[in-house]
């Protein structure tokens, strides 16, 4: 895979290594047919292309079939009217399912929720993670302990987190409502109220993932030399200005990589919502494309419709990952 990428990159950037013009070419007997094929493959993809085949070809084929093949098959199904227990009819392909999805108010609201979840969750998690990272980086006592504590929720499975927050958000005995009650607020029906449930989910997910954002930022902060902090201070910047103008802008790389991972997690928030209610129907007001897709396919047996939603979700994920991959590729990190 690397070889192919390298070849592609070389072709895109036109920086073929040139020889010094003085190399000695061996006189060899004219090669046989197999050798010629090998040579041509070698010329095209790098000299060890054929030799490395056994190592990457099996995974390449399996990935190709089960991941990319499945995506293509899914795309095909989304173009049919496949429904119920009959076999799909591949002769009549159209975009009817997509047209239906665009006018379906539940799909539209699921898309809006997906976007809200994506944006709010990513921003909140990055902000909290950055805050924690800056605090932990200030050479506090028990630094490692705090780092572990903050990272711990990340190691929990979605199912555990969901169950945990289900208790936290419990209307009568939940810790959140009890705490709010102390200051004279609430109780709030966190999971039953349509206008707050999405934010409750965002908060729970943020609780789980801000530790991850913290670790990414911490690595970024550690890479910034101490002199930058000192130079900014001597230059007259207050602590806040120092972070805002000198330190945080240098964390651009960390922000990009952390937000890509977080956004992809946000799109996959299905597990969390599924575990929250142990079923395909999340609390009203928190339906996202992922849950809608599974519900259409497995509860309602609208296979083609579910596939169409899946493709839409896939396109969204691609639109996040794609620019990131291009960015990394340009910087030569792929």
């Amino acid at each position, binding site marked *: 895979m690397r070889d192919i990428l390298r070849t592609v990159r070389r072709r895109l950037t036109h920086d073929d290594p040139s020889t010094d013009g003085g190399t000695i070419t061996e006189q060899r007997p004219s090669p046989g047919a197999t050798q010629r094929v090998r040579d041509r493959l070698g010329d095209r993809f790098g000299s060890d292309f054929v030799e490395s085949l056994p190592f990457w070809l099996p995974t390449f084929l399996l990935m190709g079939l089960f991941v990319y093949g499945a995506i293509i098959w899914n795309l095909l199904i989304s173009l049919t009217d496949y429904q119920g227990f009959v076999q799909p009819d591949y002769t009549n392909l159209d975009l009817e399912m997509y047209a239906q999805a665009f006018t379906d108010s539940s799909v539209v609201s699921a898309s809006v929720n997906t976007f809200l979840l994506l944006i709010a969750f990513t921003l909140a998690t990055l902000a909290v993670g950055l805050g924690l990272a800056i605090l932990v980086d200030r050479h506090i006592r028990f630094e490692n302990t705090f780092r572990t504590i903050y990272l711990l929720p990340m190691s929990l499975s979605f199912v555990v987190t969901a169950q945990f927050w289900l208790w936290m958000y419990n209307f009568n005995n939940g810790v959140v409502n009890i705490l709010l009650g102390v200051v004279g607020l609430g109780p709030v029906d966190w999971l039953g109220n349509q206008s707050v449930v999405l934010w409750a989910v965002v908060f729970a997910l943020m609780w789980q993932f801000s530790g991850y954002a913290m670790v990414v930022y911490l690595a970024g902060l550690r890479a910034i*030399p101490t002199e930058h902090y000192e130079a900014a201070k*001597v*230059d*007259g910047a207050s602590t806040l*200005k120092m972070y805002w103008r000198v330190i945080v802008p240098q964390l651009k790389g960390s922000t990009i990589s952390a937000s890509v991972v977080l956004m992809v997690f946000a799109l996959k928030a299905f597990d969390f919502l599924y575990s929250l209610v142990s079923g395909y129907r999340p609390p009203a007001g928190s339906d996202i494309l992922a849950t809608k897709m599974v519900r259409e396919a497995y509860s309602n047996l609208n296979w083609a419709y579910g596939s169409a939603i899946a493709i839409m979700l896939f396109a969204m994920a691609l639109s996040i990952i794609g620019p990131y991959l291009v960015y990394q590729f340009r910087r030569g990190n792929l």
Partner: protein
Amino acid sequence: MAELELDALTKVFQDGDDEVVAVDDVSVEIDDGEFLVVVGPSGCGKSTTLRMVAGLESVTSGRIRLGDRIINEERPQNRDIAMVFQSYALYPHMTVRENMSFGLEESTEMPDDEVRERVEDTAGLMGIEGLLDRRPTELSGGQQQRVALGRAIVRDPEVFLMDEPLSNLDAKLRSQMRTELQRLQEDLGVTTMYVTHDQTEAMTMGDRIAILDGGRLQQVATPLECYHEPANQFVAGFVGEPSMNFFEMRYEEGRLVGDAFEYPLPAEIDEAVAGATDVVLGIRPEAVELVGERDGGHDFPVVVDVVEPMGNENTVYLEFEDTAETLVATTDGMLRITEDERVTARIPEDAIHVFDGTTGEALHNRTVVDEEVASVPTE
């Protein structure tokens, strides 16, 4: 512009239960517009001293006075100082222009167009006008160095603090920047405290040198005073390359007795040394003379061990017979001398230094031949 005074400045680091004294009772007064070079071997506390002045390190005891303010407790951003770091510490995400404007924007209320003007003026002074819209990573080491200096100069602070600013440059660029920095400082007239471990920089750049060792101030004086009239054995050995020859000797009525040789003392030096028992005799390599014939008690037969020809001069390592003691001499580059040759070395009595064997204090320093020339500062 203001004078900077360090008064009994002390810094103690806590390392677990141990106390490490990094800077011990250092007092120096730096006049307005003066260029003071703080020099010493690594770990001598020179950087810590500088960082205390910058406010990046807290002061354990003592006082730092800038003009008529005591700035011990001031935050670095309120001290009106500019610092040049060894690694330059340019902000990589900002252009050169933004790097240079940052300090003015943060420390003053100056309007944008004035900031712009000052940055451009300073860039012109430093010869980096063409680089203003580039980023630090696109610049060479020498250019980055200029930007780092420009960033300090544009602030027009009371004091410049420089922490080994030239040590990341190659030898040629370093000597070029040395001259340039000196000229700049003279033109701007800003009080400057310059930390280095390089004694060439100390000798050539400073109005005065402060020599530190083990956190203690050894001597503050003009470069030539440090060279010719060192306060103690450490200063004598630190300043000068190749460094001074030292011989551990015993004082006996009118002469010094060592493993390798005996050295009769003239009456005047005898008086200064009398009372001490263990002493160290010091002689600069360039003061050692190679003579043809033995003539008097200050000439000693030696064998040439190694010759290092430098072109303009030779560094010759001479061995006293039957001992491990070596005498280093620098001789004229034209002098033909070969290894294993037997020669006679003269240690002239007017060029010797005598230090106390236990405290290292200078008991006697060489007579400075020409007072006029020697006492002129290096400016």
